[in-house]
Structures are given as C-alpha cells and as structure tokens.
C-alpha cells in the first residue's frame, strides 16, 4: 500500500476502538499502516471524507446518510462496513429545568408553562442524539419543532453552556453528561438506552472510492477494529483504556467520567462496543434513522430510502474480517437482521 490509512476521530469515548487499535498496535499487527487524526468537528470529518482527505472515520450514522444524500452540500460517496458502538448518550437538564420538571409533574407540563421555548442543544443536526431526543420528546407528546428550540453546540462546550444557563438541556455522548453532573451544572434525566435499548450509536464510515481501490486494507482495518472492540468491552481493561483516552497528546478526555462510561462501570449510561453484535450495521438500523429523517421533513418523499440504506450500510464488506477473526461466518449475517432491536413506539408523525 502506497500510503497510510487516514482515520478521523472526535474527542469522545466512542473513539475508543480506533484509539485502542492505534495505540495498542492492533493496526500494525494486522500489517496496516494507519494514522489517526483528531478533528474538531463532525463537519470536518464529513468534508474530509467527501474530498478524500480522510479514508475512514468514526461517524454519526445520520450524518453519513445526510452526506450521501447531499443534504449538507455536495453528495459524498460513503459506505459503512461496520457499527462501532451502542448506547452512551445522555439527556441532561440544567438545575432549574430539572427542578421545574420534577415540581410540575413531568416534562410536558413543565414545557407548557414556559413562556419562551426552552433551548436544547445537540451535537449535530444529523446526529443520533438529535433523532433520539426528538423521538423521545414526540413520544412524550412534545412537538420538537414547535415546543422547544434546538441548537447545535460542540460536545465539549455543552457543560459550559448548561452551567451558564444558555440552554435548558442537552443530549450528548460520553463523557459530557457525567461531567455536567459531577461539576453541578445539571442533572442527568436519562440515558439514551432508555429511549432505544441497544441503539446503534457511532459507525465506521469509509470513502467508497478508497474501499473500492483498497479492498485488502479494508479487511485489515475492520479486523483490527473488531479486535479493538472486544478489548474495549472488557471490564478489566477499562481503567487502561480510560487512561489511554485521557492522554494529553491524544484525545485528552477527563479520565474519571470517561472510565464511568466504559462497560461494567458506574455511569447511568454505558457504551457497548462488541456484545450483542454491536459491530453489525443492520439495514433495520439504517432504515430507522432514515425514516426519522423523513419524519422530520429533512428528506424529501422522492428519496428511495431502502436504496440509500442498501448503498451505505454494507455488512457484506465486514464478512471477510468476521470470518478471519472467527466471530461469524458471512453466511450468518442475514440472520442477524432478525435479532435487531428497534424502539417500541410507533414512528409516525407527531
């Protein structure tokens, strides 16, 4: 291979499989020369994947679909050979809002008593966080387009905005919910696993052009990440992984809250990396995200969502790595679709 694989990540606990594969030498042991680039925003990840300045990245599934469908600019050609994590986000309220919700007997009652629409922050419009928050609000009788105002704030700025009273609440990934609670800026209302148990969170997105011209490297990349996911899921390795993610010349995450979010630890919401086939990029998952994007009017009625799901979510590309790692025979992949969990509420309009 002529040059190293460039993999983009953000400063989040969900980046653990890539960081572990890089720092523990799993990429190298597979014979893959890989470089990890820490990016400041999801937009950077999407732009660099679109224009080939990154080959692969930890990605939000709805953003992968939005980029592919040209909802944020030029249409990108991306494929998702594997999912990376399940769960891990929290809905957090500032102290005033938390008290208000408790004393008015629920979120809907509190919202109806507000003269100004309370502001809720998510990490990106096309994020799992936004879709889960909106789904949960709608299921509670709230119209997220009418009853609240939605802002986009970078994950690491959430806690400051909450503490300063700029937002009533947020939905963000680990470690920022626990950080907000620990510093007294707010209270955790729920983890997103309460909205959708075992919900898919981050995925691996790869430039389709890179995947087509480097099929062997793609197998090595996905093999190393499958190995890393298994390590990340072990409770006994969690302290080491938290330390690794806290390295100042790496992700520089707050170590205590990072450890809490890892499997087997004490956060109210934990990330799952490997168990329950967390690596499986299910068509049912893709269709749920796409269905929600259409529900909120972000996708036109003319878009062929099953076709988008089939084009982007490509479990077949993971087959060789699953077989090589002895996890599953590729013939077993279709059966996994039958085991996928979906949220229980109907997904029709509010």
């Amino acid at each position: 291979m002529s040059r190293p694989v460039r993999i983009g990540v953000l400063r989040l606990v969900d980046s653990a499989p890539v960081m572990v594969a890089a720092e523990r030498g799993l990429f190298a042991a597979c014979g893959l020369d890989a470089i990890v680039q820490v990016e400041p925003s999801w937009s950077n990840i999407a732009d660099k994947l679109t224009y080939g300045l990154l080959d692969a990245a930890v990605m939000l599934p709805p953003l992968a679909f939005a980029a592919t469908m040209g909802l944020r600019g030029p249409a990108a050609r991306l494929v998702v050979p594997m999912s990376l994590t399940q769960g891990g986000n929290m809905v957090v309220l500032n102290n005033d809002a938390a008290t208000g919700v408790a004393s008015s007997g629920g979120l809907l009652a509190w919202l109806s008593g507000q003269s100004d629409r309370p502001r809720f922050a998510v990490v990106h419009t096309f994020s799992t966080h936004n879709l889960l928050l909106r789904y949960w609000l709608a299921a509670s009788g709230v119209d997220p387009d009418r009853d609240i105002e939605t802002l986009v704030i970078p994950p690491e700025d959430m806690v400051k905005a909450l503490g300063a009273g700029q937002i009533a609440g947020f939905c963000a990934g680990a470690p920022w919910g626990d950080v907000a609670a620990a510093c007294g800026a707010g209270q955790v209302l729920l983890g997103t696993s309460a909205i959708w148990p075992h919900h898919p969170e981050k995925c691996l997105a790869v430039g389709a052009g890179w995947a087509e011209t480097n099929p062997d490297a793609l197998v090595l990349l996905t093999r190393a990440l499958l190995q890393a996911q298994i390590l990340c899921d072990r409770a006994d390795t969690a302290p080491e992984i938290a330390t690794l993610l806290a390295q100042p010349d790496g992700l520089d995450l707050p170590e205590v809250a990072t450890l809490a979010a890892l499997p087997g630890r004490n956060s109210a919401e934990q990330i799952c990396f490997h168990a329950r086939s967390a690596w499986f990029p299910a068509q049912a998952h893709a269709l749920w995200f796409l269905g929600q994007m259409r529900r909120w009017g972000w996708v036109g009625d003319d878009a062929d969502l099953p076709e988008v799901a089939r084009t982007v979510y490509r479990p077949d590309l993971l087959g060789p790595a699953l077989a090589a790692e002895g996890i599953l025979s590729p013939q077993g992949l279709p059966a996994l679709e039958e085991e996928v969990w979906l949220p229980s509420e109907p997904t029709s309009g509010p």
Partner: protein
Amino acid sequence: MKVLLADDNAERASALARLLAADPRLVVLQLRAGEALADAVAAQAPDIVLADMARPDRDALDGIRQVATHAPRPIVLFADKDDPGFMEAAIGAGVSSYTVPGVPAPDVKPILQAAAALFRRHQQARDGQRLAENPLQEREVIGRAKARLIRKRKLTEPDACRWLRNQAMSRGRRIVDMVAELIRDSKGDAP
C-alpha cells in the same frame, strides 16, 4: 454580496477582509469575538460564509433546517463540481465555504480561492517563524519528543521516528513544528 468571515485568528481575518474589500461588489462582515456562528448567520444573512475549519462550532452550519428556522435562507457547503481538486486544496488549507443556494459558483470561487491561498500562506509563515525562533533547537526538540515516546509508549527508536513522521505527514506539518505544538498543547508537560 455579503461575505461573513468566521475566523478567530484576528490577524488572518483582517488580512482576508482587506483583500476581499478591494472588490466593490462585496460587503465583508466579521464574526464578533464570542459570537455564535449560527447567530451571526441568522443576524447578518450572508450570501457566503468563509469558516476556519479548526472551529469546533462549524457543525452549527451543517443543519440546513436548523439555520433556516432562524434565518429565512438556508446555507449549504459550497462545492465546485467541475473542480474537486480545488475543493480538496481549500479544505487542505483549512478553510471551508458555505453559500446560499442560488449564489452563482463563478462568484464564489475566486473568494474561496483567495481565502485558501491566504490560509496556506499563513500556515507556512507560522511554521517558518517557529523554526526561525529556534534555529539550533530543532534537533534537540525532536530528540526529546522521541525519548518521551520511547519511554511512555514503549516504542523502539525507529517506531518513534515513524510515529512522528506519520503524525507530521497527517497534519501536513514539519516534524519540529508539530512536536513544538504537541509540547505547547500538553500544557507545559514537556517531554
């Protein structure tokens, strides 16, 4: 045409503002310190936004609907479909451009081109200046970084060299500049 510059680097932003102001057809607006990008777009309704890609709040522009609920006009990432190499170069230089659908591409391209050239020059000047400040320390800085990698990450010396080279390559930087940055970013925790 209104151009909003979202760049926290004051020196670079003023240089770009002066450059663009030479075109009488352009009204150049700058983001105020601490002002949120989405708020500025809603308030100023620019036709073009030039954003420093190092900004973490650039994600606020990505939701077309989100911006559209505040401002009457949506903003999307500009793409020159005929010239993807040009877009790659702009992104590589660290600048991205958003436009209102309907703003003709021939008007946007020279503006983004000017911004990309300025960003690139700025990066090169900064690298050069850093080196000029430490003409004799280059080897020592790299040596210390290597020693730290060998100690902390249990790397062999060739692996440490390769790590530094890969990191520098991925950032498009010289090794010595990248190492200096790492040392500064680790809050004085020198190797």
